[in-house]
């Protein structure tokens, strides 16, 4: 196809670099510098999509990121399909492949368009009213139907193969928007030597000047002026210029999120180059120079392909060398669209007429129109348009003429409309900035903001290039508007622009046939908004939700103000009384990828590993995650499944010796003269009299009396304790301790230091543990008498400085050797070597769980759930009875914590010893009771015990200890299992083995 809508001698394109692309499988051509939208328009293609609800044919409306209609799918190859890309933002690249959306089977012929024929059946609130009943239709009919019909475009299914980057950045001044105001600000601030960042979402700086090549600034044509300014800024080391960068959110204390699109405009991207980069910029001061967005007019048939914003028409003409049509009608209530008409006329394009809704316009404009031989219809309104897939004609009528005498039909292939301008206040609103209603301009303007933020140019309601430049220069220099020497001389400025704000345009068409769209993307018409008000919606928030006006991906950039004017009219109040909805980040649609940044794949989340982990990996261990750590779960030998491996590992511990990596245990060194007093207040147990060289099990409660954590604590000396915590609980315990220390007991002379990673911990467990350890330990008698259970010594093990604990989490004779982490693996390998004659066996967390379950040792977080008291868990022995106080003590006498019926920790044995119950399964008394049954409790731990030759389980059961020997029932998926309640200590209840 030829680019028959190109205009010779116009545009900022690189005409030497032609590019080919496809849209819906058809090949087109364009030039470097085009957007997908401009390249399609160059071929006269306006129809690019179907609307969301009615599947009406839709065309390109804008030339920027506010585009509501021209949403397409872009396919960059495997895994790189992106729906809902705005064709007006997507830069053309060689080989670009795009497809239209929301149509089936094709854009030209769409079955879904049947909705449009029945549009009167689908007014606002249709879903709310219709799908209420019958109730049973919801699951099978309504929801599937709505799901099928909902959504725009097809979501990508594959993992995103692109990479994304992120950076923090600090600067003195961040300028959002690189139009005349922003550039002038950057120039002043940059010359002052401030660290400046200036960003623009477009591929070039210049903003509105890019679409206004005829104006001159200080004698230079606008494009030349832009080039000079950008060159100067690039020459300043303290100024950073970011193009294709959208400021997506404005957060507390001048933190602004920027999304920089790095490669979406390139056809060949080397591997490893990030697609987008998220900047988190903390700026001392922010200047918002985002300009204004033109408003559409709301008239019958305003959504036909070919009906566009007047400023977009100017942009396509000047920037992209494209005319939007061959015979154009201008319809407007604002002066700026007249300039669009003049620009087109100057380019030799036929203007069918300028239709201005206002009763009067500036005589100078009329004179200029006459000069250009353009027909003007002032005081006229559009009442109708025709053309299914492209506008073919408009019908106009004098607004003062209720008869239809003045009706006339104008043939055309494009309509440029302007309903005036809306200052871009989205980011300003993110700051919780307040807006004021400007009665003269009938618009909201920025007022107060808690941030150090200025808003300049059209965003501040400042019209005209000279004014914008001046405001930019003043604010950029940090000076008052009256106090600046810089002056700009601008010729061919557009500062005369004025206009009036409209609701829907008057029409004499029968109301039932009028389809005047307010929100193009969500298919909201003016009638919908009036219906919402009629239905009783008074707040703009309610109107928005009832009609979905402004809820599409464009966040109502084109529709909010028109919707507001209509709602205000329907309610009979002023627009500020109706108010605006809340703007939230992101300002424009943003990829999930850029938010994830580097945190995908292997780098998604921290995976902590011990120093012994590589050894386990080499042995083929199977790992499991435990909080952020990965831990060896079991060490399968050839042909073994988990059960076989765990049975072997458990057997080795019970009959010989096992070795276990316990390095992940949390460790806190508590030091200071008040260390014992501090622990005495934190833990339930008594600490004051614990002798150095001795250990004690410690139980930590919350103020509510429920178990929070536990662990063994050793006293190293009078003022120094080595506290261990659960693997997952370590950070919380430290934070809780620090919290109490700083807020409750700041008088205590005690300090906490996390030593979790200082020490590698190797557990040797089993009757032969002493035999492996003894030869490697210097100067300590390890016999049971000299070094009994719960002893601790600082010594040397295999030549490494060590803290040696006689402790056991298996019920066997056990030692835990702590050495500085850097020696952990070496010591581990020494033990493996030294233990070889005793068939030492590495075991993982699974065997550890079985062994401790056999002994009825709880694991906080598995056998407790945050509602378990020491008494519930059978741990009353761990409470210092004579202690006056400790955290949680008072709660332990709360009526509900001492009442009967609390769930208590017990053991369960299945009647069928081969059945291993499911953890989490419910326990009931009577399995024949009708559903819902009375639940007595649940299984907390359940394993196969090789030592006992049967399954075992731990459970929390109401009044469990009073139910010893009772039969209870566990309903599981296929079968209900009978169990007997027993003591939770299944193995060696007398504890002989522990003390051997």
């Amino acid at each position, binding site marked *: 196809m030829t680019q028959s809508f190109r205009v010779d001698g116009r545009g900022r394109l690189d005409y030497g670099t032609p590019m080919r692309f496809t849209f819906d499988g058809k090949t087109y051509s364009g030039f470097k510098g085009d957007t997908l939208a401009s390249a399609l328009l160059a071929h006269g293609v306006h129809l690019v999509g179907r609307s969301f609800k009615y599947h009406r044919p839709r065309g390109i409306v804008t030339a920027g990121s506010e585009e509501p209609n021209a949403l397409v799918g872009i396919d960059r190859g495997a895994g790189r399909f992106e729906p809902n890309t705005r064709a007006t933002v997507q830069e053309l690249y060689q080989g670009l492949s795009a497809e239209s959306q929301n149509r089936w089977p094709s854009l030209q012929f769409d079955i879904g368009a049947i909705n449009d024929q029945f549009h009167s059946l689908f007014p606002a609130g249709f879903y709310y009213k219709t799908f209420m009943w019958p109730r049973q239709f919801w699951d099978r009919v309504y929801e599937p139907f709505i799901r099928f019909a909902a959504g725009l475009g097809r979501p990508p299914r594959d993992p995103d193969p692109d990479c994304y980057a992120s950076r*923090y950045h600090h600067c003195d001044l961040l300028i959002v928007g690189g139009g005349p105001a922003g550039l002038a600000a950057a120039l002043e601030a940059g010359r002052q030597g401030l660290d400046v960042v200036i960003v623009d979402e477009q591929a070039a700086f210049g903003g509105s000047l890019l679409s206004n090549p005829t104006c001159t600034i200080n004698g230079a044509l606008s494009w030349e002026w832009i080039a000079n300014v950008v060159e100067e800024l690039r020459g300043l080391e303290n100024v950073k210029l970011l193009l294709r960068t959208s400021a997506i959110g404005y957060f507390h204390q001048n933190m602004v999120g920027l999304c920089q699109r790095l490669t979406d405009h390139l056809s060949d991207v*080397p591997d490893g180059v990030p697609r987008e*980069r998220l900047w988190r910029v903390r700026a001392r001061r922010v200047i918002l120079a985002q300009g204004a967005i033109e408003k559409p007019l709301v008239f019958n048939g305003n959504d036909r392909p070919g009906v566009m914003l007047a400023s977009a028409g100017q942009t396509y003409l000047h920037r992209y060398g494209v005319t939007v049509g061959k015979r154009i009608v201008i319809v407007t209530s604002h002066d700026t669209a007249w300039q669009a008409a003049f620009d087109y006329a100057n380019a030799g394009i036929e203007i069918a007429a300028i239709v201005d809704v206002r009763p009067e316009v500036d005589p100078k404009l009329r004179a200029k129109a006459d000069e250009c031989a353009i027909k003007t219809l002032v005081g006229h309104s559009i009442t109708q348009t025709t053309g299914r897939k492209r506008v073919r004609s408009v019908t106009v009528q004098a607004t003062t003429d209720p008869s239809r005498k003045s009706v006339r039909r104008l043939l055309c292939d494009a309509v440029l409309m302007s309903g005036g301008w809306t200052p871009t206040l989205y980011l300003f609103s993110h700051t919780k900035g307040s807006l004021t209603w400007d009665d003269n301009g009938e618009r909201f303007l920025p007022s107060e903001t808690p941030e150090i933020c200025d808003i300049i140019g059209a965003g501040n309601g400042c019209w005209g290039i000279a004014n914008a430049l001046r405001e930019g220069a003043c604010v950029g220099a940090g000076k008052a508007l009256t106090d600046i020497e810089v002056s700009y001389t601008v010729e061919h400025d557009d500062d005369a622009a004025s206009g009036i704000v409209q609701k829907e345009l008057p029409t004499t068409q029968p109301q039932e046939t009028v389809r005047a769209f307010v929100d193009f993307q969500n298919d909201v018409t003016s009638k919908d908004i009036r219906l919402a008000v009629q239905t009783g919606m008074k707040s703009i928030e309610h109107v928005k939700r009832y009609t979905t006006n402004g809820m599409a991906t464009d966040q109502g950039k084109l529709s909010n103000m028109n919707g507001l004017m209509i709602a205000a009219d329907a309610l009979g109040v002023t627009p500020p009384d109706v108010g605006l909805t809340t703007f939230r980040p992101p300002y424009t649609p943003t990829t999930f990828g850029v938010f994830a940044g580097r945190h995908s794949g292997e*780098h998604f989340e*921290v995976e902590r590993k011990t120093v012994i982990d590589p050894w386990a990996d080499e042995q083929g261990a199977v790992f499991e995650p435990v909080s952020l750590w990965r831990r060896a779960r079991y060490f399968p030998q050839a042909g073994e499944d988990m059960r076989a491996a765990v049975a072997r590992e458990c057997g080795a511990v019970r009959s010989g010796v096992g070795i276990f990596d316990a390095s992940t245990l949390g460790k806190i060194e508590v030091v200071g003269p008040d260390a014992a007093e501090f622990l005495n207040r934190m833990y339930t147990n008594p600490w004051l009299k614990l002798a150095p060289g001795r250990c004690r099990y410690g139980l930590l409660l919350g103020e509510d009396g429920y178990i929070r954590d536990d662990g063994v604590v050793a006293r190293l000396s009078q003022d120094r304790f080595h506290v261990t915590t659960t693997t997952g609980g370590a950070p919380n315990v430290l934070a809780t301790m620090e919290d109490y220390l700083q807020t409750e007991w700041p008088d205590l002379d005690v300090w906490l*230091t996390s030593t979790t990673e200082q020490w590698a911990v190797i557990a040797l467990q089993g009757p032969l543990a002493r035999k492996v350890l003894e030869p490697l330990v210097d100067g300590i008698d390890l016999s049971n008498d000299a070094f009994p259970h719960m002893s601790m010594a600082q010594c040397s093990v295999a030549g490494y400085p060590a803290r040696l604990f006689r402790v056991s989490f298996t019920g066997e004779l056990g030692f835990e050797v702590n050495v*500085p982490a850097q020696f952990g693996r070496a010591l581990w*390998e020494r033990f493996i070597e030294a233990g070889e004659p005793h068939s030492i066996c590495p075991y993982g967390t699974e065997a550890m769980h079985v062994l401790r379950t056999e002994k009825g040792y709880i694991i906080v977080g598995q056998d407790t759930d945050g509602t378990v008291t020491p008494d519930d868990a059978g741990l009353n022995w761990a409470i210092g009875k004579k202690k006056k106080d400790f955290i949680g003590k008072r709660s332990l006498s709360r009526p509900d914590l001492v009442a009967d019926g609390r769930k208590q920790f017990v053991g369960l044995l299945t009647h069928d010893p081969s059945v291993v119950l499911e953890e989490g399964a419910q326990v009931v008394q009577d399995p024949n009771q009708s559903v819902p049954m009375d639940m007595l409790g649940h299984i907390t731990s359940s394993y196969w015990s090789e030592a006992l030759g049967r399954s075992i389980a731990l459970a929390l059961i109401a009044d469990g200890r009073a139910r010893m020997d009772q039969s209870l029932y566990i309903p599981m998926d296929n079968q209900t299992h009978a169990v007997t309640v027993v003591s939770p200590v299944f193995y060696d209840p007398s504890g002989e083995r522990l003390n051997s």
Partner: protein
Amino acid sequence: MMNKGAVPLERVEDKNVRLSANEARQGKGFKLHTDSNGTHKTLANITGDRIKISMRAPGGRLSLRVREQNRLQTSEALRVPLPLQIGKRKTDGKRSVLCLGPDEWVIRTPCEDVQALLQKSELLRDATPHSLVDVSSRDVEIDISGRDVEAVLSAGCPIDFRQFSVGEGKRTIFDSVQIILDRHTDTDFSIEVWRSYSAYIWEGLALAIDDVNAESFLAE
């Protein structure tokens, strides 16, 4: 696979190989280097014109906590100079001390010095309440230097480097992991991080380098 162990992760040293972010993500170019002690053998690993990253050999490191009224006594008894301002570092011979909080310092000193300091601390404890804890093995140190160093660190660290003078150190984060960042010269930094997080930090730095390297391509 990458992440073979906590410290012993390193990137193959080969100036001709430039790994992409995807390759880095899949762990290509990383391999294990451990000696029999389970510690790292060679540590100088990412070597480029504009950025270098390497593991520093293990050193002695102690956490000191003491109240203001006992600070001077403790400093004198331990013969350790204590900078008074948070973020400032004082160096005395082989010892360097960084102030991390109103009552918190980290002392970097040769390994063989650690026991002697702990013994002095033990003698001092009755007269002057304080806490001195050996954390030599808890953290590892990553040296990072070169022209691009601020850009690379900015990928995961929210610090304003304009406000971070040579000779200062800060407790901060990189990729949400707590680190202590020291600035030695304009372009020389070191990161002190808990051992098991170091692989994640290393990987994050490698990905950040890919992003910084991409700038030269994108500038064209």
